């Protein structure tokens, strides 16, 4: 029996089918056609409440969409929109832009925020400063930024900035995905004040979104590699019949299974509305650690053909190498995780581990 989620995944796969991954360049920074097709099918609003203008559906559906697109190396800001920017706006009671236009997310630690009192009530700010590492800069029409609260206030401001007319610098991650910088000069925005805990949750969602993408891409790379090992013959037999290659593939499978188990657990915690900071931190750290093994061995098994731009492998391995360092590096999140686990004191580590999941 097909569940709703299977149907969603089927639909995304069908749409993806006519959009082979391509090499991103400064001129071709995203797959606009794919985005339009997904938006027309209502898939860019899944998991966001209908009252807010979304398409409704469960978090699990949104995760399934993000996973499918990540495995397909789809060049669209769906993870940012469905798992980070959209839910953060909804949680902060801010108005969601139409899900048909792309909204991305960025951390803006060095932006200064001033409240504006223009008689239209609270929630209006001006933002000044640079926002680095904006995913899909130059492609998305708005960006939800998390910036420090105005002087004298604790916490952060979550603001929705219209960037359709703002230039972004050209910068790209290892996969060619845009990660430019935006310069904000007294830009007006609607926003909400978040407590430090709420702001931490938003950061954790961002990390978890990347972990979900990593998990899906890791699984896909393993599947490609297993398939290739069955097809490529040397010395009269398929590579997969050689024990050395079997060991490498089994090692990859162990890494992939560990990551999936942890990202599943973290998304379930998110679904239950539990504090997700430590679960997300763990998922991001574990996924990052798996990239080293999986990408290295996938290229080893694929031999020289996998080292070429002709072969599809690089579409995912380059993303793996990028995503693991985005939304907070392994170093950053491993410290967050350890500090959180030790919050109850030197003897609290084990109880904390069992609480995370």
């Amino acid at each position: 029996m097909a569940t709703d989620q299977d149907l969603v995944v089927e639909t995304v796969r069908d749409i993806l089918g006519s959009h082979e991954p391509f090499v991103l360049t400064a001129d071709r920074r995203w797959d606009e056609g794919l985005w339009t097709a997904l938006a027309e099918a209502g898939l860019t609003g899944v998991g966001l409440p209908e009252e807010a203008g979304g398409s409704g559906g469960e978090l699990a559906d949104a995760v399934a969409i993000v996973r499918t697109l990540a495995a397909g190396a789809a060049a669209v800001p769906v993870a940012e929109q469905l798992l980070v920017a959209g839910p953060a706006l909804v949680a902060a009671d801010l108005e969601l832009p139409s899900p048909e236009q792309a909204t991305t997310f960025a951390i803006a630690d060095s932006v200064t925020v001033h409240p504006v009192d223009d008689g239209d009530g609270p929630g209006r700010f001006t933002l000044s400063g640079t926002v680095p590492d904006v995913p899909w800069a130059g492609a998305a029409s708005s960006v939800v930024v998390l910036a420090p609260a105005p002087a004298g206030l604790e916490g952060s401001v979550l603001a929705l900035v219209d960037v359709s007319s703002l230039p972004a610098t050209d910068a790209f991650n290892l996969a060619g995905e845009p990660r430019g910088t935006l310069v904000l000069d007294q830009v007006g925005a609607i926003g909400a004040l978040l407590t430090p805990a709420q702001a931490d949750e938003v950061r954790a969602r961002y990390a978890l979104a990347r972990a979900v993408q990593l998990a899906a891409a890791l699984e896909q790379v393993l599947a490609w590699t297993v398939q290739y090992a069955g097809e490529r013959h040397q010395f009269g037999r398929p590579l997969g019949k050689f024990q050395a290659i079997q060991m490498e593939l089994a090692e990859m499978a162990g890494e992939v299974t560990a990551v999936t188990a942890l990202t599943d657990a973290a998304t379930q915690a998110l679904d239950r509305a539990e504090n997700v900071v430590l679960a997300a931190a763990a998922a991001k750290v574990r996924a990052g650690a798996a990239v080293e093994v999986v990408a290295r061995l996938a290229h080893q098994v694929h031999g020289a053909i996998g080292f070429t731009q002709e072969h599809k492998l690089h579409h995912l391995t380059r993303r793996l190498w990028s995503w693991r360092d985005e939304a907070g590096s392994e170093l950053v999140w491993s410290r967050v995780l350890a500090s959180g686990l030790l919050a109850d004191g030197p003897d609290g580590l084990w109880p904390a581990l069992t609480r995370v999941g």
Partner: protein
Amino acid sequence: MSNSLTLAPAPRSEAAEQVRAEVREFLAAELAAGTFRTHVDTWLSGVDPEFSKKLGERGWLGMTWPKKYGGHERSAMERYAVTEELLAAGAPVAAHWIADRQSGPNLLTYGTEKQRQEILPRIVAGECYFVIGMSEPDSGSDLASIRTKATRNGDGDWVVNGAKVWTSNAHHSHYGIVLVRTSPSDSANRHAGMSQLLIDLSLPGITINPIRILDGGHHFNEVVFDDVVVPGDMLLGEEGNGWHQVTAELAFERSGPERFLSTYPLVAEFGRRVAETGDPAQLAVLGRLSARVLALRQMSLRIAAALDRGELPNIPAALVKDVGTTFEADVIEEIRKVVDVTPSLDSPDPLARALAEAQLHQPGFTLRGGTNEILRGIVARGLGLR
């Protein structure tokens, strides 16, 4: 990815959290009373029959077994919570570990009613211990090459000759489930002709010789069978079905939290050190190790849930054991790179002691229960490569 490796997430179990809290309270009281001291790898080395009996009294052995054999008919998830709490605390659980984890379930599946009635209630009470009699001097990874032989005598009893090695805790245990050849080996079908016998280790003709491990500890043994007469009704399961029975056991043997928590007491000690120093490099290492523990817990819990559903997830179990035991060993290197501590078994510093214990036990982790090379072969089969 191949379905034979992926399992559904484990459901959350309130009952498991409840029993977890009870075990924690018990362990804290026992530690405070000084009845045990935390050590690394206690499921191999922490033999303490009194402690095992206490666990039996609390209802924490044979937890999932039917009540008619003294069991408690609880879920695999509840049992999981108990076992991981004991391991995380480094409690002395070696006496009963094999009997509770593996031999009891084996008897439930293959034992006769008489065997179950006689033995299972004693395991539940924490008073009856088992060994795994598989390996032999010339048969390790290639278990199908075993030579220990059992032949029927005129009375229908079995006469056993041969030798088993690496038999953990044979010198403290009451029974062994011993894999023997009951028909001559057949090169066309290497897995045929083997059977499992339930052998009382006090029978005449059995000699148990200690084999010491690197730190001088006596945990495993050579067990020699010299014309040992085993009653005919002590066959376990079907004659000739030994290979199948042994491989079915392995989901229990390979998937539990003991496959990644053997060195957890070292991690806990390191955690205490990091809490003191707040050193950023140490924090990062603790975070990385914790993420690995968390992933392994999820993997292992999924297997416990699959066992609850009546499945035998042998291939995912092999995978958990490979990833888990690799972690157990990695812990040592990760920690020693960021602490300036000289490992020593008799240091007053608990971190130095835990490091020393872990280091000296390390080679065993990726060997016992099937080596990681063999496990990866099983995983490769799960990936469709063999």
